[in-house]
């Protein structure tokens, strides 16, 4: 298998090097480096958006989520993604209109100019920082689990994480966002190919799809319905997840930025439904891998199940391409997120562009180092950690939505209200505040609180401002 691994890695790195070199010659100005000259076409646009959205968490987290919690995982992610892509049509139009008016450099910067206070930008940057760092660390953790299994005893997992972070930084430093977009395109194609190859193998182990579900029925029939064996997929959990997923393009800067850097509105609309199709295609095989695991390896820990299903039960070339595919998935998503954090910071910096870029580049290294440290003690619950990240940033959605929809200056009270919701959710994550109030989940209560207060604040704004 090692020969296949070297062969595929060689090919993958050659593609990355080519894309990096191509991007390096073109990217000179800060805007071209950080925002790819805002000239991404629809195909690259949909591949980069999809690759930033679907990552190690899809590849490794979703099969394990299906295996442990059952078929409700489809509603959790795929159905939510369906709502999200429709929402992009509406949100993307308003966002791009605003971005043009205010010369978009980053979401945080856009909020500063919309609200007329730096606190709006600081709030956005803080939420992205607090919840993206664990999310990026999840990806690194995912690939190190996998590489440790592929090369047992060769390197400890933290060294794998370090290698990953170094490649990512080198690549981003050379090519900027354009290089990341190219790498996303490569990764998106590899991810789709690999996940179907593995999914196909998993189905063929049972002969066909009905037999696969029959096998699962014999092992644990509660996996075939909601809320699943652990009672996770209640309507409240699924609804809260849907809201968090729909808010991803609003509050996760790596995806918001991708809506702006697409060259025109028509391309962005094409991107929206293409991402929807990609979501269905990429999540469907994770059902097969998860159900295969539920029938064959119901009691194995996450890392052993993934090693078995994605690696040892596959033919050597498929296992080798799975390793490369996962590495690529992890690389592009983490790159996108760390780069987005850097861009957010840059959009908050004022003064000389050269100095701002220097600080941004230093910040990229600092963010990567923090991620590296986090990744060494992340748990294996990839999907639930991702959900925490989506929900945490979603608390800041009113700040962006009001700024983007309203033509005038939004009320500053929205920053305060969103920040309170954000801090409350953060406290619930670390256990200071309960995650339920009576029978209701805290995230749903916070969404309702945000909706009502945002509407009330905007309605009462003329009363206070005269």
């Amino acid at each position, binding site marked *: 298998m090692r020969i296949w691994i070297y062969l595929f890695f060689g090919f993958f790195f050659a593609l990355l090097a080519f894309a990096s070199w191509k991007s390096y010659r073109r990217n000179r100005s800060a805007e071209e480096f950080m925002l790819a000259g805002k000239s991404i076409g629809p195909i690259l646009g949909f591949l980069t958006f999809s690759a930033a959205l679907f990552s190690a968490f899809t590849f490794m987290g979703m099969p394990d989520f299906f295996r442990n919690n059952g*078929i*409700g995982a*489809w*509603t959790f992610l*795929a*159905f939510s*993604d*369906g*709502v999200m*892509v*429709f929402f*992009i*049509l*509406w949100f993307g*139009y308003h966002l*791009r*209109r605003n971005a*043009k*008016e205010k010369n978009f450099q980053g979401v945080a910067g856009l909020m500063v100019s919309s609200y007329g206070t730096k606190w709006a930008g600081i709030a956005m940057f803080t939420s992205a920082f607090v919840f993206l760092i664990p999310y990026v660390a999840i990806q690194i953790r995912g690939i190190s689990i996998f590489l440790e299994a592929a090369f047992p005893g060769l390197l400890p997992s933290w060294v794998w994480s370090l290698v990953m972070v170094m490649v990512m930084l080198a690549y981003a430093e050379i090519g900027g966002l354009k290089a990341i977009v190219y790498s996303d395109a490569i990764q998106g194609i590899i991810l789709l190919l690999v996940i179907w190859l593995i999914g196909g193998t998993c189905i063929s182990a049972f002969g*066909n*799809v*009905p*037999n*696969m*579900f*029959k096998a699962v029925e014999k092992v644990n*029939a*509660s996996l*075939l*319905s*909601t*809320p699943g064996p652990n009672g996770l*997929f209640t*309507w409240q959990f*699924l*609804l809260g997840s*849907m809201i968090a997923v729909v808010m991803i393009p609003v509050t996760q800067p790596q995806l918001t930025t991708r809506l702006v850097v697409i060259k*025109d*509105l*028509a391309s962005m*609309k*094409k991107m*929206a*439904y293409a991402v*929807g*199709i990609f*979501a*269905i295609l990429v999540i*469907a095989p994770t*059902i097969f891998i998860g159900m295969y695991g539920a029938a064959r390896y119901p009691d194995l820990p996450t890392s052993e199940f993934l090693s078995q299903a994605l690696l040892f039960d596959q033919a050597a070339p498929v296992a080798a391409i799975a390793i490369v595919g996962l590495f690529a998935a992890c690389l592009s998503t983490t790159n996108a997120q760390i780069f987005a954090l850097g861009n957010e910071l840059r959009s908050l910096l004022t003064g000389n562009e050269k100095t701002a870029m220097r600080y941004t580049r230093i910040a990229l290294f600092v963010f990567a180092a923090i991620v590296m440290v986090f990744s060494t003690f992340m748990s294996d619950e990839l999907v639930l950690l991702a959900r925490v990240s989506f929900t945490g940033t979603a608390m800041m959605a009113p700040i962006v939505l009001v700024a983007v929809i309203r033509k005038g200056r939004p009320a500053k009270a929205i920053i305060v209200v969103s920040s309170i919701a954000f801090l409350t959710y953060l406290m619930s994550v670390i256990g200071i505040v309960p995650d339920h109030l009576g029978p209701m989940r805290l995230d749903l209560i916070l969404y309702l609180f945000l909706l009502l207060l945002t509407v009330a604040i905007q309605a009462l704004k003329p009363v206070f401002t005269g």
Partner: protein
Amino acid sequence: MKLQKRYWMICVILVVILVVLGYTPLMIPRDVYKPMLLGIPYSLWTSILGTIALVALTYIGAKVHPGSDKKETES
């Protein structure tokens, strides 16, 4: 343009209906996995069909959305 706005509103209404149905016992009944379709459990095939419908509505929505590049620049 008026007609386009109407079609867009129809898409929005259909998406809202689908979303509401998606989280009711109609699509995710508790502990029920029959009737199966092509061997696929009930909540899974209904959710898959719901997702396909959402993506189809996104495709139609992209065609009829009243926003344009010209409007983007004008505003």
